[in-house]
Each structure stands twice: as C-alpha cells, then as structure tokens.
C-alpha cells in the first residue's frame, strides 16, 4: 500500500527545453521516442520558444521566397506535440535561470521547474559594427520573421546587398535574386565561401555566381552606411569605393546565443558558446547545451547534422543511454543558385605534408581538388565546384580512412574509356555512415534487413535513411540492391504475368523482331491474353517504333479507354475534350469556337494547368461531332489522354514583356508542333521562359527551356505532380538548332530505354551515372547513337497525324463512338446538375431524387 502510494506521488522526471529550433525539436523527438518505449520511465517535457511558432526547417529557409509558406517549412505541429504530451509555450523568452531552486522564469514572469534543463537557444546573426547598420532596411537572415521583413523591404527596393559571402550569405543572395532585386554580395575575404572552399574553387564559384547575375565584390570592408543618391543607401568601403543599394542584408557569420548561460554563471568559451562535454553537459551537470549555442572542444558547429548528434547524445545521457558526441564531420554538399558545391574535411590542405590533385575544366565550368596525406594513402579533404557527383564516394574515403586507389587522381578525372573507380558499397565498413542527417550506418541498414525489411521503402521507413536532405539516395539504393542480391532476392523487372521482360526489352524485341501486332508479340514472347499493363505499353511501343495510327484495328483493343476514345474518361463515364493550343497562344476566333461548342453541347469549361481549355461532360456519342466542329475551326487533338507530349507552356516573352530576352512563345509553338503526338512511357511536359524570371516554370518540366541573352538554357527531367523535382541544367546558351537536336536525342533515348510509367526524372536517376551519363550520350555521343535517335525522331515528326481527324474520317473506328449498338438512346445514368452557372455530374443522392421525381411525374401522366 505504502509503496504504491510512493509511486503515485513521486513526480516524473521533468525536462525543460529552452529553444525550439531544428535541434531543440530533434531533442524533443528523442524524448517522445523514449516515452513510447515499453518499460521506459516516462519523462515530462516542457518547451519554451521565444519565437511565435514551433520548429521549422531553417536549412531550406530561402524556399520561403520561392513560394513555400511558414506552414510548408514547419517541422511539427501543435497537435503533434499535444498528442505526445509535450507541453509548450510560444513567445516565451526565458530570462532567468535559478540553479539552486531549479527554476526558469520567462519574460512574462511565468516560472517553470526542471530536473534537467536543455539549452538549445541557437545562434544569432552577427552584424558588423558599422555606423549606420541600424537603419530600417538593414536586415538579417535567420527566422521566418526576418524573411517577412526582407520580403516587405524587397517589395519597395530595386537593389539589394548581402554582406558576407559565406554559405548563408550566398543563400541569402539567392533569396534576394528570387525576389527580383539586382543583387550584390560584399565579402571581406578575398574569395567566396572561404571556410569550405580553396582559392581555385572560390574563383570558379565566383564566376558561376556572377554569370547568374549576382555581382560579387571581394576584399571589401564596409566603413559606413550613408544616405544614397540613386538608391536609399550608400555603402562606403575602406578602399574609397562606394556601392548604392536600397537594402542591406547582414550574413557575416553567427554568434552563439549564450546570454542566459553568461548571466547565470554557466561556463562560456573565450569567444562565446556554452562549454559542453561529450554528453553535452555544461559545468552544471543538470544543464545541457546542444546545437549552435554549444561549444565543444572550443568549436561551434554551425550545421544541422552535428546539432542532431548533440541532441541524441544529450537525450541518451538523460535517459540512461551511452551515446556521446565526439565531434562531427563538417563536410557539406549543396546547391547554391543551381551551382553544385561540395567540401570535405581538410579542403585547404592544411594538414602537415598534405598533397593535392587538382582538375579544372573551364569549358564545363568544373573544379575538383582532392587533398591526400603525404603517403598518398588516405583522403584528407576535397573541394568540388560545378559537379558534385563524386561527393559520396570521396566522403566515404575520407570518413572511413579507406585506402586510396593507386592513382588517386582517377577519383576526380572524367571517365575516359574505362569508368572511374566507383567505390563499391562492399568496401565500406559496417560503421560507415550512409545517411548523416539521421545518422544511419551501413550496419543499421543490414540490421534492418535482418529484422524483416524487404525493400528500399521498408528501409526508409524503419531507419529514416535518405529522408532528410536525400543526398545519400543513390548510395542507399546501391547498398539496398546489393544487399537484396546477396540475400538471393531477385529484383524482378518483369512487366506483368504475360511478359517476363522490362519495357526496354520489349521495345527491342518489337524493333529487332519487326513485330507489328500485339498478337504477334504475345505469340512470340508472351502468354495469356495480356492485361491493362502490357497492352497499353505495347501500343505505346508500336506507336514509337512504327508510327501507326493508334486506332488501327490491330491496336484498338490494346488501348486504355482514354487512348481508345481520344479523351479522358471522367467519373460518370463522360469524356473531356482538350484541343491543342500550342504554346498557349490562341486567337479570339478560336476562343469563340470553343465557347460555342461548349454552349451547343452544354459542356463544363475550365482552364487547365497547361494553358489550354478543357470541355467536360461530353458523352461518347457526341465526341465525333464535337471534334468535327473543332477540326473545321482549325483545332487538332491535344493528346491530353495519352502518355505523350502534352503541352509546351510559355510566358509571353520578348515580344511583349519588358524583361524578355527571347521569343519564348514562338519557340514554344515550334517545339510543341515538332513533338506533338510522340508516344512515351509517361506523359511529357515542356515549358519555355523568355528570361531568367522563369514565369513559365520551366524548371518543373521534363524539358525546360529558359532564354538567355545568348540563346537558350536547357533543363531536363523535372516534374511537378506527386513527387516534384526541379530539372537539372543540361546545357547553356544553345542556339535553336542545337537545342532541338539535344531534345530530339534526349526524348528518343528516353522513349527507347525507360520503363513503363517511368517519368524522365526517375529514368535519369536510374541511369548509371545519371545526368553526367546523359550528357555524355547526348552531347558527346558516347554511344554513337545520336544519328539514329535523330532519324527516329524525324520519322515520328513526319508521320504525325491528328488522331481525332483520322478517327472520324474512318467509318470503322467511328462505329465505336456510340453508347449502344442497337439504340440511339443515351446513357440514362449520366445526369448533370447546375453549379456556378455550369454543369457538374449529379451525386448519387441527387440522381436518386431525380429518378423519384421522374417516376412521380410518369405516374401523374398515367
């Protein structure tokens, strides 16, 4: 009895967390996980945040300017905290720590008790002490509130300056550029990113960033900020030069937010930062510090991954575990304004006796350097600018002290003939880190297999590997595939039960065997009658190889209903009709025809995402007449029903726009007309933007084209949809002829080699060597395929026909467009009701009501 009482009254261990940034939140998650573990002593958690919202993703802060909301950036929700019994208070700045009574007081006077206190107060931006730095449009870049202030300032500014050319400074410059400002970066050091990158890399980085329209000024010490003449302010530099600007963003480094510790007698380093041990304890054993406010071994870690490791170490120590923090690798790989930058370990070669190998390719704008020890046995560091494809391999060499190959330079030299010595995952030791965001080692992944995971998706769920920055995705896939193979799991690529081949293999079988019908293909290489997977895939292959009309008698039975009826079936069995509007350009006459057709047939009209107009609610028997009217007015099919080229979206371009540098509309129309009707493994979308403002959103398309002063930049393999992906820059400043050649080759290569329903993005990621490999094939003709690919594409272009026209001209296929073979009646189940002055399909209950009324009416009439 008395023991039971004791348990009831004994209070749970209470942890108070000050700060709810990324690291603070990670700590909370560790404790939630601990509480969820069976038999654990539950811990009470209270979180104080000085900010008005819970943790958000500061790493991707600049995406706020490309349209992400505070909500998109959020790492958690109040509901999640509540559901897990985490109490929290926002706008609650801690101002007092009493170590004796173990209480913390907030600005509002609220007091909180703790058993263990965790400081994760982060850092604040350092603003150099320059006279005039406190004016209204002098801002910093750290929180969502800062970003809102920057947005507001940018809206009334034309020119913006970022002070500081480090990693964060360049992120901030990107944000200003996205906000449409003429952007400058002012750096005190002689080069950009001087912490991570050496002189050679810095030079190339600068030229790439300047090519993107950001002006870089190095070796500039700002002495004062005064009133400007053309702009709001004038920055005066020590060398006598001046720079006018409307706003200034300071990003000159961070300082640990250690005021609390400082005031309440917790040990602080000489240059700031709360001193912690390997368990992240401060000199008061009940107080911990983690993240950017903590100083470990006289070092502040300004990256999120080490912060996470600290959070795990502190949580582990509090809950009786044995994890510790023993320093962290500061290697980093990122994309700044589309420029790939990688830095590993001793990038500057400061280790005694260090030697380096450097490779620079000026035409391709790449710079690569590796630093090795004096014996050339181990990798100490690396710098990669313009191409970071070798980053993962190099990082594994550096982290695990793996023996270098005989000629270490082969690690960064471009492959000539034989492939570069890729690092087999087998060579990695069990403790090698695969995912640094979630600290998942090779051993953890093998353990996950041992405890029942069967595939990549399982591994991601149970280890969280590759769910952070995603940088390790390729490495993880190789490891998982290799592990599956070792375990005797066959990675099946069969299309379906009828064909034991991949789409690519079937493509070759069709082409080489000159097979022109599905029956022929089935008889020779398959079994059964086929299915919804292999039939449309075969039809697509036949269309690509033999350019046959998709509705020839042989092929009609292969098509999905959308392809057979040349429209998209909607939920009630009616179809949508989308004529092609190349480039989104349409005459008033044609607009009137569309409106008239919609009125005549009582169709619902809507503007699509691809700059076209869609008419909904056409019954199958109405389709031929609707198409006839449209064809007579000069329209043709838009292939919206097909796995084919859909649209080439465009902005208005140089013809009308003040900023346009090329005729994007003209280019879009030409491209759309060239590739219309091309059948592919999945739908394909293009866009053409007339300038770098990118109003056509070309980087979210399979083929994206952005005009430059000198021609066209080509982006490939982007997509929107369920799993959005930005396209990769493939080539720059192309003339139209070269542009078309490249697109011909890329698309034909995709059509011939991709898997069924594989979008260009996944296809490219699955090509061994990815983007670089694709460049080699298309630009350098490494497979000697280009002539064939171009010829094939030309055949497709030359054999184009409008499928609507062919369908209605052919009496056999026209027969299919009726609801009943033995009656002219319509399907009674299709019922529309009116909403917002247009039709929409009736719901089930509305249909019921309609039927009842019809019955009642019929009875009345009798």
């Amino acid at each position, binding site marked *: 009895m008395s023991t039971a009482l004791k348990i009831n009254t004994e209070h749970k261990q209470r942890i108070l967390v000050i700060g709810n940034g990324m690291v603070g939140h990670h700590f909370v998650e560790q404790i939630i996980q601990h509480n969820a573990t069976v038999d654990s002593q539950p811990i009470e958690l209270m979180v104080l945040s000085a900010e008005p919202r819970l943790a958000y993703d500061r790493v991707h802060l600049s995406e706020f300017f490309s349209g992400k909301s505070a909500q998109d950036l959020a790492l958690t929700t109040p509901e999640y905290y509540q559901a897990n019994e985490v109490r929290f208070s926002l706008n609650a700045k801690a101002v007092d720590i009493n170590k004796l009574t173990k209480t913390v007081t907030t600005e509002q006077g609220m007091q909180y008790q703790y058993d263990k206190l965790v400081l994760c107060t982060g850092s604040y931006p350092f603003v150099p002490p320059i006279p005039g730095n406190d004016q209204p449009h002098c801002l910093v870049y750290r929180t969502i509130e800062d970003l809102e202030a920057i947005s507001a300032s940018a809206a009334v500014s034309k020119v913006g300056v970022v002070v500081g050319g480090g990693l964060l400074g360049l992120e901030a410059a990107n944000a200003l550029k996205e906000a449409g400002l003429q952007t400058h970066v002012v750096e005190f050091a002689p080069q950009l990113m001087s912490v991570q990158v050496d002189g050679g890399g810095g030079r190339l980085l600068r030229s790439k960033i300047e090519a993107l329209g950001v002006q870089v000024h190095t070796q500039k010490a700002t002495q004062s900020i005064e009133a400007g003449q053309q702009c709001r302010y004038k920055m005066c530099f020590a060398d006598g030069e001046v720079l006018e600007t409307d706003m200034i963003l300071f990003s000159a480094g961070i300082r640990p937010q250690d005021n609390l510790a400082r005031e309440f007698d917790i040990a602080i380093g000489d240059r700031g930062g709360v001193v912690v041990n390997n368990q992240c304890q401060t000199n008061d054993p009940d107080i911990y510090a983690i993240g950017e406010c903590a100083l470990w071994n006289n070092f502040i870690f300004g990256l999120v991954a080490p912060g996470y490791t600290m959070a795990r170490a502190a949580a582990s120590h509090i809950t009786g575990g044995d994890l510790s923090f023993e320093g962290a690798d500061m290697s980093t790989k990122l994309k700044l304004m589309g420029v790939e930058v990688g830095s590993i370990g001793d990038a500057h070669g400061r280790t005694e006796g260090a030697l380096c190998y450097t490779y620079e390719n000026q035409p391709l704008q790449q710079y690569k350097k590796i630093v090795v020890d004096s014996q050339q046995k181990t990798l100490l560091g690396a710098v990669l600018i313009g191409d970071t494809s070798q980053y993962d391999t190099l990082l594994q060499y550096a982290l695990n002290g793996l023996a270098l190959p005989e000629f270490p330079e082969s690690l960064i030299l471009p492959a000539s003939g034989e492939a570069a010595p890729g690092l087999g995952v087998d060579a990695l030791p069990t403790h090698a880190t695969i995912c640094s965001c979630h600290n998942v080692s090779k051993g953890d992944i093998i353990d996950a297999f041992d405890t029942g995971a069967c595939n990549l998706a399982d591994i991601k769920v149970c280890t969280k590997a590759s769910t952070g920055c995603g940088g390790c995705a390729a490495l993880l896939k190789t490891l998982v595939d290799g592990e599956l193979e070792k375990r005797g799991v066959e990675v099946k690529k069969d299309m379906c039960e009828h064909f034991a081949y991949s789409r690519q293999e079937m493509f070759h079988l069709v082409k080489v065997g000159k097979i022109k019908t599905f029956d022929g293909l089935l008889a020779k290489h398959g079994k059964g009658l086929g299915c919804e997977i292999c*039939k449309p895939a075969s039809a697509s292959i036949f269309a690509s190889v033999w350019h046959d009309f998709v509705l020839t008698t042989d092929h009609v039975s292969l098509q999905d*209903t959308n392809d057979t009826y040349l429209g998209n079936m909607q939920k009630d069995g009616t179809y949508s009709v989308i004529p092609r509007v190349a480039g989104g350009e349409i005459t008033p006459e044609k607009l009137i025809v569309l409106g008239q057709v919609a009125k005549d047939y009582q169709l619902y009209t809507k503007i699509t995402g691809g700059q076209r107009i869609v008419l909904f609610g056409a019954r199958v028997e109405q389709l031929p007449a609707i198409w006839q009217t449209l064809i007579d007015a000069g329209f043709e099919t838009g292939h919206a029903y097909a796995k084919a080229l859909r649209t080439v979206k465009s902005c208005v371009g140089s013809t009308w726009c003040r900023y346009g540098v090329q005729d994007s509309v003209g280019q879009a129309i030409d491209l759309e007309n060239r590739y219309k009707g091309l059948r592919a493994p999945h739908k394909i979308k293009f866009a053409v933007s007339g300038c770098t403002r990118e109003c056509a959103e070309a980087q979210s398309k399979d083929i994206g084209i952005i005009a430059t002063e000198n021609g066209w930049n080509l982006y490939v393999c982007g997509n929107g949809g369920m799993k959005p992906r930005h396209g990769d820059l493939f080539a720059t400043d192309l003339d139209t002829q070269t542009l078309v050649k490249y697109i011909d080759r890329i698309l034909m290569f995709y059509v011939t080699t991709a898997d069924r329903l594989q979008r260009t993005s996944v296809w490219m990621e699955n090509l061994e060597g990815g983007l670089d490999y694709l460049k080699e094939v298309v630009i350098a003709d490494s497979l000697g395929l280009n002539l064939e690919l171009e010829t094939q594409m030309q055949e497709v272009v030359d054999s184009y026909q409008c499928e609507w026209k062919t369908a209605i001209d052919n009496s056999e296929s026209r027969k299919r467009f009726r609801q009943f073979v033995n009656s002219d*009646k319509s399907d009674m189940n299709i019922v529309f009701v009116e909403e917002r002055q247009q039709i929409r399909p009736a719901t089930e209950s509305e249909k019921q009501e309609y039927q009842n009324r019809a019955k009642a009416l019929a009875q009345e009439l009798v």
Partner: protein
Amino acid sequence: MMSNNNTNWITVCSDSDLVNNSGVCALLEDQQIALFKVQDADQQKLYAISNWDPIGKANVLYRGLIGSVDKSTVVISPLYKQRYCLESGQCLDDQHNQLRVYPVRVEQQKIQVLWAN
C-alpha cells in the same frame, strides 16, 4: 441452351458490330449489356455481362480492356481498374462484387442474348 416461355433469345446486333478483343454495349429494355468478342488462339468466344461498374458507379464496362489472369478471361474496368471474370462476372479484386452474366450466342451472323422477361 434451354429456353422456356419466360426466356427468349433476343437479337441485339450483327456479328460485324462487334470488335475483336474489345467490347460494345447493347440496350435491352432498360438493361445495359456489355458484349465482348475474344479471340483466344483459334477459338472465338462471346461474353455478355452487365455494363454497370458497381465500384465506379457508371455504365462503362464495355469500354474496358480485355485481358487474362491465369486461365480466366477478364475485362478491366476503365475507371478504377478492377478485373471482372467474363465467364462468371466475379470481381477478382473485391469478392463482394459479382456482375450479372447473360448467355450469348451467334445465330446466322446475329448476336443473340438469352433474355428473361
């Protein structure tokens, strides 16, 4: 096939109205019947099932693809891709759904369905 007073073979269309390995739809009173002609090796087979897709709730099954699952011939709903055995009407992806199946034959190039009054 037997027929009695209540059931009759009703002609719905001619053989040439059918499309090989694909479907058409006939209206008998207010019933919609999907008709399929399937060429399997040397054999030609006719099937007639209800045209109503009970899951998609629309009269669309005649516009589905024909295929096979193991030995049975199926039609695949064009809306949500459920497979229905043409022989039995059974939905292979949801055992609670079975479609009505109608006996069907060719008589002098006419397609006839056995219809119960």
